[in-house]
């Protein structure tokens, strides 16, 4: 009766049997890690937990590389276009004929690319944590959570069914919740993890409703058939969803915008970004993995996954690009003012994701116009590398001086040479300096924007300038600026285990740009030659350099220029420093409106009105019976009177009235 274990074998054959199982192993290995560590970690794997988890993840990383190689170079292509292959799929929950949640694996360029990114970064973080988290009391728990996260993230990127994606989406959210709250005894951490979960949950509400609409009109939850049905302009599904409209906007647009809200929540886009900076309460490697490289780009991935459908609705795409560009600029501005290094990085992440989003927004579906899509994916890829690198570097800095505040830092280049170099590389990469990875991806994004929409292009340009400024502000004030006065004994850098990931990542950040990305990941699967114009890249690079030199001028040596400038733009600086008071706004909404205006009245109503009515009925009964007791006066003659009254009453009633 149920279709469990009725795995579609054709897919597996198309890959060759062993590859099919390899594919299954990729997510299952981290899951195994999660379960075994979660159940037995405390007892049996107290010390070896890290090694164990790392080995598992290394295996799955290797497998995913294997798969990627196989997909891109062996059997992925069919007459020049990369195919969407579904090697494994089974029905998980059947709602109604045609409408069911299927769990499966969908292989296409972006999912394969994400596979590699996720497993690789996760592996790096695992290794890094071996040293960074050493001696933590809940060491096994930490690794089991990492395993859970990796599993869910992999499930997310390989999802073949929109509801499957939603499922793993939630799981990713909860594992991020658990990891942010890892230091459970810090109230700030607890607050942060709650905030992160609730805000993303709120966004997921939009996602869920979007899914409901799509499923209703599309009549399916399966990505391929959904896309197929909703992109062919003459299919009945498309006609109905495009014609059905609510307050003048077509159901399609509603659905897509709602889905995008979900994505915006996860990807910390304006105005749902407020959780991301607080999420930095988590251990730094976690921030590197979840809140820089992988989870936060899930939103981008979602839009990319549904991109064909998005491209059917102008409005939806516009929303995407506008939100994207706003977040990019907004975050960049705030980043310039923050003093907590992790927060700066967080805002820069938000800004970079903004880049990816608007680049998706300005992209078209097929051929040349699809440049934006490729660019976004490319940037996602490179950003993952250098942002992870930045965070891990920041991690080793924090590990060294036990503080996140810039003012405690400075002149660390002597003490942390490797960190210094790698961090520099990452900064160059993110601020788009050739020949580092960021340069190429950002070029493509700007190019796509330029072709499509001038305003977005100019804003983006300015933003990239700002990017390089705040990144180097960070760099200089950590490694140069004032001399570092070592108090107490100075232990060196974390050692090889912590340095190896940095080095590997920095290699990636340096070299990844030369990958001809357009050959692999494109909107329509066909190969896309990214035409590369030297004269075009002058402006961004120049702006980048400008940013870097300003930062150097302000922060290389200790001086009062920053303060004077801050004073010169006093009010605006304050505004930016306080993140434009968005947190306060949210606080107001939740505390004042949700709790005081809805929650309290509801509780009051229940306590007094509903419950009161029940009690009132009881009391009134008792009251009446108290009032009635006079009849039973104890006087036998009164009894007789009532008796005769009864007789006469009955007689009169039934003789004259009620015949």
């Amino acid at each position, binding site marked *: 009766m*149920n279709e469990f274990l009725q795995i579609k074998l054709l897919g597996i054959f198309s890959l060759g049997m062993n590859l099919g199982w390899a594919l299954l192993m990729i997510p299952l290995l981290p899951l195994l890690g999660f379960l075994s560590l979660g159940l037995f970690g405390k007892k049996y794997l107290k010390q070896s937990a890290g090694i164990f988890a790392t080995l598992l993840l290394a295996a799955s990383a290797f497998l995913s590389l294997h798969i990627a190689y196989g997909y891109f170079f062996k059997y992925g292509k069919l007459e020049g276009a990369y195919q969407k292959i579904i090697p494994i799929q089974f029905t998980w929950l059947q709602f109604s004929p045609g409408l069911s949640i299927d769990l499966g694996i969908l292989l296409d360029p972006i999912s394969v690319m994400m596979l590699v990114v996720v497993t690789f970064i996760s592996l790096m973080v695992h290794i890094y944590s071996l040293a960074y988290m050493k001696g933590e009391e809940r060491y096994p728990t930490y690794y089991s959570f990492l395993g859970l996260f990796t599993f869910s993230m992999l499930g997310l990127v390989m999802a073949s069914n929109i509801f499957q994606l939603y499922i793993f989406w939630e799981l990713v959210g909860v594992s991020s919740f658990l990891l942010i709250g890892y230091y459970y005894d810090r*109230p700030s951490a607890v607050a942060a993890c709650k905030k992160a979960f609730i805000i993303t*949950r709120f966004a997921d509400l939009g996602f869920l409703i979007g899914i*409901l609409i799509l499923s209703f009109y599309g009549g399916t939850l399966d990505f391929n058939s959904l896309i197929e049905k909703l992109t062919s302009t003459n299919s009945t599904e498309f006609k109905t969803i495009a014609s059905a409209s609510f307050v003048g906007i077509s159901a399609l647009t509603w659905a897509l915008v709602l889905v995008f809200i979900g994505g915006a929540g996860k990807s910390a886009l304006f105005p749902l970004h407020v959780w991301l900076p607080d999420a930095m309460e988590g251990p730094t490697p976690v921030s590197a993995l979840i809140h820089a490289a992988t989870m936060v780009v899930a939103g981008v991935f979602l839009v990319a996954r549904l991109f064909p459908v998005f491209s059917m609705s102008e409005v939806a795409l516009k929303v995407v690009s506008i939100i994207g560009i706003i977040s990019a600029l907004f975050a960049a501005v705030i980043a310039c003012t923050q003093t907590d290094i992790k927060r700066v990085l967080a805002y820069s992440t938000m800004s970079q994701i903004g880049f990816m989003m608007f680049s998706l927004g300005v992209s078209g579906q097929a051929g040349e116009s699809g440049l934006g899509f490729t660019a976004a994916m490319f940037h996602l890829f490179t950003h993952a590398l250098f942002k992870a690198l930045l965070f891990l570097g920041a991690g080793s800095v924090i590990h060294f001086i036990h503080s996140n505040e810039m003012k405690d830092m400075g002149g660390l280049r002597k003490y942390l040479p490797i960190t210094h170099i790698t961090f520099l590389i990452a900064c160059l990469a993110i601020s788009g300096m050739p020949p580092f990875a960021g340069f190429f991806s950002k070029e493509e994004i700007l190019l796509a924007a330029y072709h499509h929409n001038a305003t977005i292009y100019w804003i983006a340009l300015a933003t990239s300038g700002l990017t390089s400024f705040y990144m180097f502000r960070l760099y200089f004030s950590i490694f140069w600026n004032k001399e570092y006065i070592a108090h107490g004994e100075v232990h060196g850098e974390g050692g090889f285990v912590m340095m190896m990931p940095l080095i590997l990542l920095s290699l990636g950040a340096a070299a990844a740009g030369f990958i001809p990305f357009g050959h692999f990941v494109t909107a329509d699967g066909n190969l896309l030659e990214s035409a590369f114009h030297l004269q075009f890249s002058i402006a961004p690079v120049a702006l980048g350099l400008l940013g870097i030199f300003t930062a150097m001028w302000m922060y290389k040596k200790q001086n009062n220029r920053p303060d004077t400038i801050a004073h010169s733009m006093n009010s605006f600086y304050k505004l930016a420093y306080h993140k434009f008071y968005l947190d306060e706004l949210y606080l107001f909404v939740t505390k004042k409106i949700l709790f005081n205006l809805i*929650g309290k009245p509801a*509780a009051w109503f229940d306590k007094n009105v509903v419950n009161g009515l029940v009690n009132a009925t009881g009391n009134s009964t008792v009251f009446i019976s108290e009032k009635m007791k006079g009849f039973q006066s104890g006087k036998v003659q009164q009894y007789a009177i009532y008796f005769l009254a009864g007789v006469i009453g009955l007689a009169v009633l039934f003789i004259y009235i009620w015949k």
Partner: protein
Amino acid sequence: MNLTLLILLPLLTAVVILLMRSSVQVKWSALIGASAQFILALILFFTFRKERALGNASQMLFEIQYKWFPSWHISFHLGVDGISVAMILLTAFVVIAGVLVSWNVEKMTKEFYLLLILLSLGAYGFFISLDLFILFFFLEIAVIPKYLLIGIWGSGKKEYAANKLALMLMGGSALVLVGLLGLYFGGNENTFDLLLLSKMKIPIMVQKICFPLLFVGFGVFTALFPFHTWVPDGHSSAPTAGSMFLAGISMKLGGYGCLRVATYLMPEGAREYANIIIVLSTIAILYGAFATMMQKDLKYINAYSSVSHCGFVLLGIGMLTKTAIAGAVMQMVSHGLMTALFFAVIGMIYERTHTREVNEMGGLIKVMPFITTVLFIVGLCSLGLPGLSGFVAEMTVFMGSWQNPDPFHRVATIAACMSIVVTAVYILRAIGQTAMGPINDRYLSLQDAKWNEKLAAIILIAGIIAIGIAPFWLNDLVTPAAEVIMQKVAGK
């Protein structure tokens, strides 16, 4: 298999308990009885699946019919379909867990376990009876044990709570009684037999009168919006096992009745009042959730959240689509397991900290990792995390509700969806304040769960996860039965 076993076994257990001398013997015999029930339920489940797999498509399986009060056309008619089997499984899970968690009840142990077993007897009988008279009989059997459980072993303002519960539930069953009599005399032949009634055409007028009576009557049991006030007080003053049974089993009696009796037998009535049901249940969902946000006492939190969650059951029924009804049943099962587990955990915490005020606790992860882990699991289940049962049930309800294309249903569905956010808010508040944060020094010496508590928790978690990661078995169990009901409602 013979369904009377499901009634005889608890009866036997009760007798054995009566004969036992020491409290230890009582506990063990109760545990053995409960485990026997558990095994029996599993056997029932698998034999049922086998029958269906063999293609036995008759609506009710394992039917038996004995003569009982023939002059009133009453007969002791038993039989199960997928929905009943699901509910029986749920009952078995909760019963064994309840017996386990109340292992250290020292006051009047014998009476305590006797009442627990009687409660389970009532529940089983209710779920397998195909004759409305015995259905009502078992429905009322289950009321008084609750009253005594709360009144004798309860805490807080227990007399008040017990009275309120007994009276409101009796009021509900009084309405049910009137409705049943309406059915009895309304049809073209006087009978209480469910299947016969489902065959005959009940006049619209009768349906219009009797449907609300029956629905509200059963609704009182499952916390239909304005009649839910027994839930918070009852649950919060009941002993742990008491609240587990109350929320896990007896609130489900109502939902089952609403579905099996009211909706199935009176489709026109159902269609007539569907919108009112939807409105009420949507109110219950949101209002319960918001009321929960304001609670400080863990038991109150779970009680109000039960109001909210049972709203989904009624919403699913009110939506009148196959998927939604299946979802409603799944939600019953899921909520039963989940809330029982939640109360079990609260009980464990209370036994150790001697408080249920969330803001007097904190950082309990440090001293009781197992219990807090269970708390996390159950909390996440109640806020609908995939991989746990809550998600499956709620999503099915949403999917089913969304199949009604008109704006009214859409708005109701979206409103219901909103509750997932509010749920997240209050659950995280509760968990955050109990398990996380800095620990209070006076809790540093507390012990983690003992074997019986662990066992109970594991059993329930097993149920939750079994539904959560492999919902298709429950779906296959429930959907055909829901289909039958829907066909009747759709008038085919």
